[in-house]
C-alpha cells in the first residue's frame, strides 16, 4: 500500500516538490509558534511565589548632598521611621531598581567552589524585604541586622539557583563567590543564609530565573533610589497623596509612587502584544496555506477523474478511493515533516536559546499533529468528492 503511494508521488515529483516545500515551511512556522506557546504556558502555570497586592514602589533620585556612608544610613533610618509611623504602612525595604515587574535587570556571574559559574539576578534587599514581598522560605532563614558583623555578605538564594549550584545538597552556610571585574579585585564572597521559594518577578509569562538577594551594604545604599512597601488593604489615593507630600519634603528630589499590581498588567502587555502579533501573522500564513493546499488537491483530483473512474470500475469502493487520496497527501506531508523534524531537532540538540528540551519536543509534537490535522482537513473534501465519482460518467469523458 505505502510503496504504491510512494510510486504515485514519485511519478509527479516535480509538482509535489513545491507542495512539500510549502508544508515544510508551514511546519517550521508552526514549530516556532508552538515553542513560544508551550514556553509561555509553562511559565504561566508556575505560581508567582509572592504577594504583589498592596505592594507599592517608590522611586526617587538619591539626593546628591548626602555622600558619606553614615549620613546615608541616618537618612534612610529617618525616612523609614517617618513612614512606619503611618498606620497604613506595614513594612518597608530599600532595594535596587530591579523591583518586580520593572524593566530593569541586574545580573552577575556566581560561582560555588571552582567548577560552577552561573548567571543570577542580583537583588539588593534589606532584612524586611521578605516580609514586604511575603516570600516563603524553604531552608534556613532571611538575614537579619545581626548578620552585618559577619565576614561575608549575607545572602538568600532562590530554589532554582540552589538546585543549580548545590543540587540536593544543603545550601545554608555555604560560601559563594562573585566575579567582579570592574573593581579589579578577585572576588566578592557571600554566605548563604537561607533558600527561598522561586519568585516570578518578571511577569506572568516570563521564565523563572536564578535569583540572589543580597543584604544591602552602605555603599549600595548611597545609590539606592527605590523602596518597596506593603500597605494595609483598602489604602486609597488620599493616603497616597499624603505619603507623596511627606516623602517629597523629606527627600527633596523627583519621586514617583507605583503599584505592583498595575506594573504587572503593563509588564504582561509588553510580553503579550508581540505574541499576539506573531499569532495573527502565523494564523494568516496558515489560512493561506490551507486554502492553497485545498485548491491544489481539488484541482489534482479533478484532473484524475479518468484514473479514479477506472479504479471504481474495477471494483474499488468510494471509501477506498477517498482513503487513497487522503493517504497520498499524508505521505507527502510525512516527507516534509521528516525534513522539518531534522531541522527542528537541532534546537534541543544544539541548545539554541537556552530552553529546556521538553519545550522543543512538545512543540515538535504539537506542530506534527497540527500539520497532519490541517492536511487531512484540506484533503478530506476533495477525497469525498472523488469518492462520489461514477465510473460511467468519468470514463465516458475519455
Amino acid at each position, binding site marked *: 500500500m505505502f510503496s504504491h503511494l510512494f510510486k504515485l508521488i514519485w511519478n509527479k515529483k*516535480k*509538482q509535489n516538490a*513545491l*507542495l512539500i*516545500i*510549502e508544508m515544510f*515551511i*508551514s511546519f517550521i*512556522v508552526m514549530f516556532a509558534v508552538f515553542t513560544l506557546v508551550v514556553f509561555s504556558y509553562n511559565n504561566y502555570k508556575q505560581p508567582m511565589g509572592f504577594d504583589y497586592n498592596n505592594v507599592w514602589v517608590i522611586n526617587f*533620585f538619591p539626593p*546628591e548632598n548626602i555622600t558619606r556612608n553614615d549620613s546615608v544610613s541616618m537618612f534612610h533610618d529617618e525616612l523609614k521611621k517617618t513612614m512606619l509611623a503611618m498606620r497604613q504602612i506595614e513594612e518597608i525595604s530599600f532595594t535596587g531598581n530591579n523591583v518586580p515587574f520593572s524593566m530593569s535587570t541586574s545580573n552577575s556571574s556566581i560561582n560555588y567552589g571552582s567548577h560552577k559559574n552561573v548567571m543570577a539576578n542580583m537583588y539588593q534587599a534589606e532584612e524586611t524585604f521578605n516580609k514586604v514581598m511575603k516570600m516563603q522560605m524553604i531552608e534556613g532563614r532571611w538575614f537579619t541586622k545581626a548578620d552585618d558583623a559577619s565576614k561575608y555578605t549575607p545572602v538568600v538564594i532562590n530554589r532554582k539557583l540552589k538546585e543549580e549550584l548545590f543540587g540536593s545538597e544543603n545550601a545554608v552556610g555555604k560560601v559563594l563567590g562573585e566575579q567582579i*571585574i*570592574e573593581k*579589579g579585585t578577585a572576588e566578592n564572597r557571600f554566605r548563604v543564609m537561607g533558600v527561598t521559594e522561586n519568585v516570578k518577578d518578571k511577569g506572568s509569562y516570563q521564565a523563572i530565573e536564578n535569583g540572589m538577594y543580597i543584604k544591602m551594604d552602605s555603599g549600595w545604599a548611597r545609590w539606592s533610589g527605590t523602596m518597596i512597601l506593603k500597605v494595609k488593604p483598602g489604602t*486609597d*489615593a*488620599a493616603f*497616597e*497623596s499624603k505619603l*507623596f*507630600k511627606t516623602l*517629597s*519634603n523629606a527627600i*527633596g*528630589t*523627583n*519621586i*514617583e*509612587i*507605583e503599584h505592583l499590581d498595575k506594573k504587572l498588567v503593563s509588564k504582561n502587555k509588553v510580553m503579550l502584544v508581540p505574541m499576539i502579533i506573531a499569532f495573527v*501573522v502565523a494564523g*494568516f*500564513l496558515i*489560512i*493561506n*496555506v490551507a*486554502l*492553497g493546499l485545498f*485548491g*491544489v488537491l*481539488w*484541482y*489534482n483530483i479533478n*484532473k484524475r477523474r479518468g484514473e479514479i473512474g477506472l479504479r471504481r470500475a474495477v471494483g474499488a469502493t468510494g471509501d477506498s478511493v477517498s482513503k487513497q487520496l487522503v493517504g497520498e497527501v499524508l505521505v507527502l506531508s510525512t516527507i516534509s515533516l521528516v525534513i522539518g523534524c531534522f531541522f527542528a531537532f537541532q534546537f534541543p540538540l544544539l541548545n539554541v536559546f537556552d530552553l529546556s528540551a521538553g519545550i522543543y519536543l512538545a512543540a515538535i509534537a504539537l506542530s506534527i499533529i497540527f500539520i497532519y490535522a490541517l492536511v487531512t482537513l484540506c484533503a478530506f473534501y476533495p477525497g469525498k468528492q472523488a469518492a462520489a465519482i461514477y465510473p460511467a460518467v468519468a470514463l465516458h469523458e475519455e
Partner: protein
Amino acid sequence: MLKNYFKIAIAVLKRRKFFTFISLFGISFTLTILIVMTAFVDNITGANYPEVNRERSLYITTLQQKNVKYFSQQNGPASFYYLDHYVRTLKTPAKVAISSLFSPTNTYINNKKLVINLKYTNDAYWDVMEYKFIEGKPYTLQQINNGERIAVISEDTKKNYFGDVPNVVGKYIEADNVQYRVAGVVKSVPATMFVSYADLYVPYTVSKTDYKHKSLMGNYTAILLGNSKEDLPKIKAEYASVVSKIKPDGGFDVFVSGADPYLGSFLRATPLGDSRNGGISKLIFIGSIFVLLFMLLPTLNLININISRIMERSSEIGVRKAFGASGMTLVGQFIVENIILTFFGCIIGIALSFLILQVLNNSNLIANMHLTVNLTVLFFSLVACVVFGLLSGVYPAWRMSRLQVVTALKAQ
C-alpha cells in the same frame, strides 16, 4: 496586445472563482500585513510630529565609557553639564536642543492619582521641535535663567488635570509636589517618540537634581539641528573632534560618543551599532531578510496555485504554440496576467490596510499615535507587489512554456 492580455486575464479570473479568491486573499493579506508593519516602523523612525526636522537633525542619546583592561563599560545618556559644556558650544549646528529623559511622577487631584511624565528642557528645544501650541507659548531663555516655575503641558494633561475648560494658561498645575504656572498647551505626543514625549515640560533650572554636577553621565539627550541636510557631516566631524579631547570619568580609559541620525543614536550602544552611521544599514539588512522570509510562504502558495491554473489551460497553450507563438511570448503573457492579478490583490490590500490603520488609530492602542500610509510606504508596497507577481509568475510560466505541443494538445 496588452489589452488582449488584460481581457484574457479577466476571463481566466472569472472562470475559477475559488482559485481567484485564494490568490487574491494571499496577495492582499500579505500586502496588508507588510503595509501595517511598515506604517508602524515609519511612525516610530520617521520625521513625524513634533520631530519634523529629523532629516536635518543629529541625536546624542547615549555616551559610552569603557575600561579596556577589565572589559567593563557603561552606556547611558549624558549629563546636562556635558551637553551644555561640549555640545551646545559647537559652531556648526544652528540650534542645540537639550532635554532630560521623561521621568514619571505623581500628582493627586480630587483623591485621584495622575501619573505625569516630566521633562526638563532648554529654550532651543522649542525651536528644534515643532510642537503645535493650542494655547500660550513656550518659556523663554530669560524665564529659564530666572528659574521660574513655569510649564508647558500636553493637551491630554490639560484634559486630565483641569477637565473640560477652554483656557488654562496662567493657571497653576501641581506635579511632583511643586506648583508650576502653565505657559502653554501643546498637542499631545505619542509615547513612541522617545525623545519628545512628555506630559509636562519645564525649564532645566527648576530640576530638583543638581544640573551643574560635573560628571559625564546623566539623564539628558541632545538634538543638533543643522541649517540643511548638507551640514550634517560637518556637525558630525566637529563633534567627533570635540569628543576625541574629552577625558572619561574615573575608572574608565575610553570615551565614545557620536552624533547620529535618530535611529542610529539608539543602535550605537547595541551589538548592531557601528561608528559610521550607528548600524542602520545592518538593521535594514536584517529587516529585508525578515520580510523576504515572511513573503516566502505566500509566494510558494501562489506558485502552486498558478501551476494548477496554467496547466488547466494546456490546450490553449498547445494551440498557440502550434500556431507559432514562441516560449518567450507565452512567458511574457502569463507574467503580465499574473501581474494584473497581483495588481488587483494590491488594490484590495491597500484598501484593507487603510481600514485596519483606521481601526488601530481609533482603538487608541498607543495613545496619540496616528498611523498613516505615507507615500514611501505605498511605493514600497507597490514594489513588493511587482516582486511578488514576478516571483510567483516566473516559475509556472517557465514550466508551461516548456510544454510540448503534442502533450499539451493531447491533455484535452
